[in-house]
């Protein structure tokens, strides 16, 4: 029972026993996953493609296609989250960083598009502040999505979540194809959010990026969370890690042994 330690936690997001079932393929995609994210916490979910990590983000926002059946209990700041009240949270309290640039409106300049996501006064000013905090050039606000390079697109997608001023960001693969120099720039806003008492669910296959930014790492394999460990456990040969799969992931990093001890 991975969530047992979080009983009594009233702030943040708690997911209990999430199961996803594909009705046509007659297949369980995610099995009995429980996870909690406290305020001021960055939790990374790592796993191979097909392990069900992206589904996790979409199921929190109740954005899954109709052929997938979702069973879980979800609490946001102590209140149950379901199909009916999620519209009040989605894009307001909880924001998603989409995986690809396709999520942006291709016919709107990115600046204009981001303004449409914002609410309240002083939009322009706030947008500029977020924009420069991401290390983006003000001129780039006038770019169309197709004009952005890979690294720029990554940061614009992050901006699209930040402008909604959420308390929880679900980051779905925010780092692929980002080089070492840009990586710290891409990760900085997450640390910033953490300092502001907000939380991040960082979904990635890039173990290295997860280690750099997260407080706790949840390892997913085959639709199940097999281990949740604090980042400090990931050291040396990984003696403190519980599961052999997690150990194998750790040892497979090119910075470590670069071997596959799994299978």
């Amino acid at each position, binding site marked *: 029972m991975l969530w047992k330690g979080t009983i009594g936690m009233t702030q943040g997001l708690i997911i209990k026993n999430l199961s996803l079932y*594909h009705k*046509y393929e007659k297949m369980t*995609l995610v099995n009995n996953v429980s996870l909690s994210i406290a305020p001021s916490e960055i939790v990374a979910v790592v796993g191979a*493609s*097909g392990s069900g*990590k*992206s*589904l996790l983000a979409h199921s929190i926002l109740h954005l899954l*296609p109709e052929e997938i059946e979702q069973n879980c209990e979800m609490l946001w700041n102590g209140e149950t989250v379901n199909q009916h009240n999620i519209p009040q949270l989605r894009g307001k309290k909880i924001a998603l960083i989409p995986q690809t640039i396709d999520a942006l409106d291709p016919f709107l300049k990115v600046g204009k598009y981001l303004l449409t996501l914002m609410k309240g006064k002083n939009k322009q000013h706030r947008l500029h502040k977020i924009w420069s905090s991401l290390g983006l050039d003000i001129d780039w606000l006038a770019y169309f999505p197709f004009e952005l390079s890979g690294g720029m697109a990554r940061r614009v997608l992050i901006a699209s979540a930040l402008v909604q001023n959420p308390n929880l960001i679900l980051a779905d693969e925010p780092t692929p194809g980002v080089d070492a120099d840009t990586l710290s720039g891409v990760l900085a806003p997450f640390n910033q959010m953490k300092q502001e008492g907000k939380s991040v669910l960082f979904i990635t296959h890039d173990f290295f990026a997860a280690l750099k930014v997260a407080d706790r790492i949840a390892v997913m394999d085959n639709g199940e969370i097999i281990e949740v460990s604090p980042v400090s456990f990931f050291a040396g040969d990984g003696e403190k890690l519980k599961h052999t799969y997690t150990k194998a992931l750790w040892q497979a990093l090119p910075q470590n042994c670069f071997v596959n001890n799994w299978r």
Partner: protein
Amino acid sequence: MKKWIPIKLIVPILLILVLYIVAIIIEQKELAIDLNQKNTAPSLTHLFGTDWLGRDMLIRTWQGLSVSLTIGIVTAFCSTIIALLMAVVAGANKKFDRIVRWMIDLFLSLPHLVTLLLITFTLGGGVKGLMIGLIVTHWTSLARVLRVEVFQLNNSEFIQASRQFGKNYIWIVWHHFLPHLYPQIIIGAILIFPHAILHEAAVTFLGFGLSTDQPAIGIILSESMSYLSAGYWWLAFFPGLFLLSITLTFQYMGKQVHRVMERNDRYDSGVNN
């Protein structure tokens, strides 16, 4: 993996098939001229009424339909082939692409009906002239769609990979392009159909198309014009309605085919993460 073919698609296909088969069978029958029964209003014995020679309008309309459907099928088939050939040629290299684009623009910039009339008239009318006219004017919009598809495929990585393995363009067209294009091809062909039928009727109505001894709907409509003022409304009303419903059935069928293919496609792609 199960493919979905809903009832909504089967019904229009069956409807058209039955109509067509019955039309072919009754086409053989010479219609009796019964001058005692001329110009009677629709009744139980003559559902669509009779014309000025006492011929049953239901059977005449039905026979007319068989000509229209045949023309529609041939036009849709040939236009689709031309559209596909054009798109494939355009994909071969940039020079061909410019030529094809120019041809598409040329045909699209001319008013459809005027071009059609001109070609049909030049070829001397009749079934052959009309059919060639229809085929030559109806390939453009589908060719435009297919050209873009081919262009996108040409730039996709798996086509580039295929070229890396030394496959030539014809091989790639046959093995890669056609399986990807077939949904557009089928839907495009179905949607050319009602267009062609309506244009056939229009040209015939204007007197440039089929000869008057053929029982086409356009002929029936244009003949009925001289009787309309005498109050014989059924001469135009029922054949017109029939034509309209066939056209709408085809539109509907096209839409359903599109939906089925989209659904199967979405289902095929499944869930990756």
